C-alpha cells in the first residue's frame, strides 16, 4: 500500500510544471484565446520532444509506456496552466480510444503520428441530447460501396477544427460501432461552438452521408460499447485531473492574494471568514487529489472497483472544483471579476470540463446503478 508518487513521477510533474510555467504563461493563454487556430505549434513541438504526446502509448508505437497516474499528473499541470491546445483531445480521447479498441494496423498508423505531434486526434462522444450513455447514439452508419456511410450531428467535439482524425460512434445494423473519420472528408462540416473557456475549443461536426472505408471501423461493427465505456471512464478521470489543476491554481492565487490585500487596516487573510473559506478550499483540493489519483491508479491496475472509482472521481471533483474556483473569485472580490486578472482562465477551464464525460449527477446515478446491480447478482 503506497499512496504517494514515485521519484520518477515527481520528476515528471516538476518538469511539466517548469515547462508550462515558462512557455504556457497567462500571456500565452490569452494570445491563444485570440488565435484562430487556438494553439501554438512551437509548444506542441516541444511537448512532442518532451514525450508528453506519447506518454500512455506503448514504446513500439513511439510512446513512453506510462500509465494513467502519469497522464493525470500531466493533465493536472495543464489545468493549472489553463493550457490552450488539443492535448486532451489528441492523447486522451483519440489516443486512448485507439489504444483501447484499435486494430494493430490502426494503432500502427495513428499512435506514432499522435506521439510525434504530426497528427492530432479527437473523439465525438456527444450529440444534441447530451446523453453520455453510448447506447443513446443516433448517428447512423449504413453499408455503402466498399465501406460505410455516416450521417448525423455531433456536438462539442474538442479541437475538431485542427484534428486529422476523429473517433465517431454511430449506429450500424450490427449495433453501436466506432469509426475513424477524417474531419476534412467530403460531407463533413465543422463549425465552431464558442464557449466561455476560449482556451478550449469545441466544434459541431455534421456528417452528411460521409463515406468511410471498411478499414476505418475501430474494433468490430456492433462492438463499440465496451471501448466507449472504457474511453469515457478515462476521459472522466483525465478531465478531473485538469479540473484539479485549475482548482489548485485558484487556491494558490487566493492564498497569495489574501496575504497582501488589506481592508479595515488588516490583511484580509487574518479574518476568519476568509481563512475558513481558504481552509475549506484546501480540503476540497486535497480530497480531489485523492479521488483523481486513486481512480487513475485503479484504471491502470485494472482494479475491480475501477469503474466505480472513475464515477466517484468525476462526481466528486466536478462539484469540488466548482466550489474552489468559485470561492476563489469570492475571496478576491472585484478584481477576481475582471478580464485583466487571470483567475477567470482557471475558473472557466474547470467550468468547461464540469459537464463533460458525465457531470456529477450522471456519475452519481452510475454509482447507485452499479451498487444495485452488484447486490442483485
Amino acid at each position, binding site marked *: 500500500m503506497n499512496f*504517494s508518487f514515485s521519484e520518477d513521477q515527481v520528476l515528471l510533474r516538476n518538469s511539466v510544471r517548469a515547462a508550462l510555467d515558462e512557455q504556457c504563461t497567462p500571456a500565452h493563454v490569452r494570445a491563444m484565446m485570440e488565435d484562430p487556430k487556438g494553439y501554438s505549434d512551437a509548444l506542441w513541438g516541444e511537448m512532442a520532444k518532451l514525450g508528453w504526446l506519447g506518454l500512455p502509448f506503448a514504446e513500439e508505437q513511439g510512446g513512453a509506456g506510462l500509465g494513467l497516474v502519469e497522464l493525470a499528473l500531466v493533465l493536472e499541470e495543464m489545468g493549472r496552466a489553463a493550457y490552450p491546445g488539443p492535448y486532451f483531445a489528441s492523447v486522451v480521447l483519440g489516443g486512448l480510444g485507439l489504444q483501447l479498441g484499435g486494430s494493430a494496423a490502426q494503432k500502427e498508423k495513428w499512435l506514432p503520428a499522435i506521439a510525434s505531434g504530426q497528427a492530432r486526434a479527437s473523439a465525438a462522444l456527444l450529440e444534441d441530447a447530451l446523453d453520455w450513455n453510448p447506447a443513446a447514439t443516433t448517428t447512423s452508419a449504413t453499408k455503402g460501396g466498399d465501406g460505410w456511410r455516416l450521417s448525423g450531428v455531433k456536438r462539442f467535439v474538442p479541437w475538431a477544427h485542427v484534428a486529422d482524425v476523429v473517433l465517431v460512434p454511430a449506429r450500424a445494423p450490427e449495433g453501436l460501432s466506432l469509426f475513424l473519420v477524417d474531419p476534412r472528408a467530403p460531407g463533413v462540416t465543422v463549425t465552431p461552438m464558442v464557449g466561455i473557456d476560449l482556451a478550449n475549443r469545441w466544434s459541431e461536426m455534421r456528417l452528411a452521408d460521409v463515406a468511410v472505408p471498411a478499414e476505418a471501423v475501430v474494433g468490430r461493427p456492433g462492438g463499440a460499447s465496451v471501448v466507449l465505456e472504457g474511453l469515457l471512464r478515462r476521459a472522466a478521470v483525465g478531465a478531473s485531473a485538469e479540473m484539479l489543476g485549475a482548482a489548485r491554481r485558484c487556491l494558490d492565487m487566493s492564498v497569495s492574494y489574501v496575504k497582501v490585500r488589506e481592508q479595515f487596516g488588516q490583511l484580509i487573510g487574518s479574518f476568519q471568514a476568509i481563512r475558513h473559506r*481558504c*481552509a475549506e478550499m484546501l480540503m476540497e483540493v486535497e480530497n480531489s487529489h485523492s479521488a483523481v489519483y486513486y481512480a487513475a491508479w485503479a484504471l491502470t491496475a485494472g482494479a475491480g472497483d475501477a469503474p*466505480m472509482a472513475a464515477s466517484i472521481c468525476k462526481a466528486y471533483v466536478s462539484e469540488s472544483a466548482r466550489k474552489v474556483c468559485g470561492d476563489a473569485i469570492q475571496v478576491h472580490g472585484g478584481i477576481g471579476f475582471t478580464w485583466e486578472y487571470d483567475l477567470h482562465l482557471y475558473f472557466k477551464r474547470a467550468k468547461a470540463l464540469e459537464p463533460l464525460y458525465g457531470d456529477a449527477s450522471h456519475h*452519481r446515478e452510475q*454509482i447507485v446503478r452499479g451498487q444495485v446491480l452488484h447486490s442483485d447478482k
Partner: protein
Amino acid sequence: MDLNYTAEDVAFRKQVRTWLEQNMPRHIRNLDERKAWHRRLYEAGYLGMGWPKEYGGQGARPMEQAIVADEMARAGAPAPTNSLGVGIVGPTIVVHGTDAQKRRYLRKILTAEEMWCQLYSEPNAGSDLAALRTGAEDRGDHFLVNGQKIWTSGGAVADWGLLLARTDPAVPKHKGITCFLMNMRQPGVEVRPLKQITGSSEFCEVFMTNARVEKENMIGRLGEGWGIAQTTLGYERGGRALARITTYASQYKMLMDAARRLKRNGRPILDDAVVRQKLGRIWADLEVERYGALRTLTMLERGEHPGAGGSLTKLSYSEFEKRFMELAEEILGPYGQLTDGVPAEFRLEVDTAVGDHGTWAYAFLWSRAGTIYAGSSEIQKNVIGERILGLPKESRADRVGGTR
C-alpha cells in the same frame, strides 16, 4: 503508487480475522466483561500495538494497527476500554514521563487494571483550552488542586486522570500550565455524569476541592504543560482511519436495504432519482474519505507525521459524518428517530462507548459531537489556515498578560 495491500498485510489481516472469529464475545453486558475482552485483545497482541515493545506494546506498524481496528469494525466487535489511557495518557508518559512513572503506570494502562481519563476542558475553557483556571498550588511535597473540569470522557469509571492545571497565574496563559497525573479515587474529587443530547452519559463533570497530587506525579517540568498537551493532542495516529470508513460502509449498505423497503407512491424510494442522487453523492464522499485514509496511512508507514494535515482529515471526516447521518435520517424518516421499539429491519447494531446497543437515532445525535470535540471544525480551519496555508494570524487580545 500501488494501492494494493502487501502480501504481508493480507496475511496479517487474515490472521486477525480468524482470531476474532474464534475469540470475539457476542455481547458485553458490563464493564467487567469489557475489561476481560480488553485483556484478551491485549494478550493476543492486538491492543497498544503502537507502543514501544519495552513498555509492553508491539512496536507495530501503523498499517497493522489500522488493520486490527478495521477487522474489528468489519466483525462488529465490541470496543476495548480505557481508550484515552491507551491512546493518549500512555504515550504521553512514554514521551514525557520519568522512569518511575513509566514503571508505575504504563502496564496497568494496557491491561485496563487502571482506567484513565483526561482532565482538560473547563466550562470557560473549551476551544480556548489555554484559558483554563483550575489551579494547582505548591504545598512543598504536593500540589493542592481546586477547580472544575467538564467533558471528561470515562470520568465515572476512571481511577486516574491526566490533569492540566494552572500553576502560575501571573505569566501569559500558555506558560502557566502544568501537567499532572491525579488520583481520581480521593475525597477531594467529585465526579458527576453529564447527560448529553443522546440521553446517555459518555462524559462527566469533575469537581476538585483541595484534591491532592504528589510532586512525583508532575509530568514534565513546571509551566510546560501546554507544550505537553499540544503533543498529546497531536498524538492521535491513523489507527481508526480504515475502521471508521468500514463502519460507515456497513451503515450505508443498511440504508440501501432500507431504501428498498420504504416506499413513496407505491414505489421503493431506491427507485427515486432524488434519493439515488443523494445516495450516490454520499457514497462518493465516503470513498474519498477512504482514499484519504490510505494517504494518511502511507505517510505514517513512512514515519512521517501528518502534523497539521491531521486537521484536514478530521475536518473532512467529521463534517462528512454529519452529512451522512442527516441523509440516514432523511431516508429512514421516523424510524431513524426511534430509541426503542425499533423493528428488526431498521435496527442499527453498533456498540456504543457506554456499552448500550446503538440505534440510528443515537448515531445521528452522536454525529453532532464529532465537529466539536478534539478541536471544533472552526478551530481546525484556523489551524489549517495558519499552519498549512501560512495565512496571517488574527490579532488576539489574549497573547499578552496573565489570566489574573
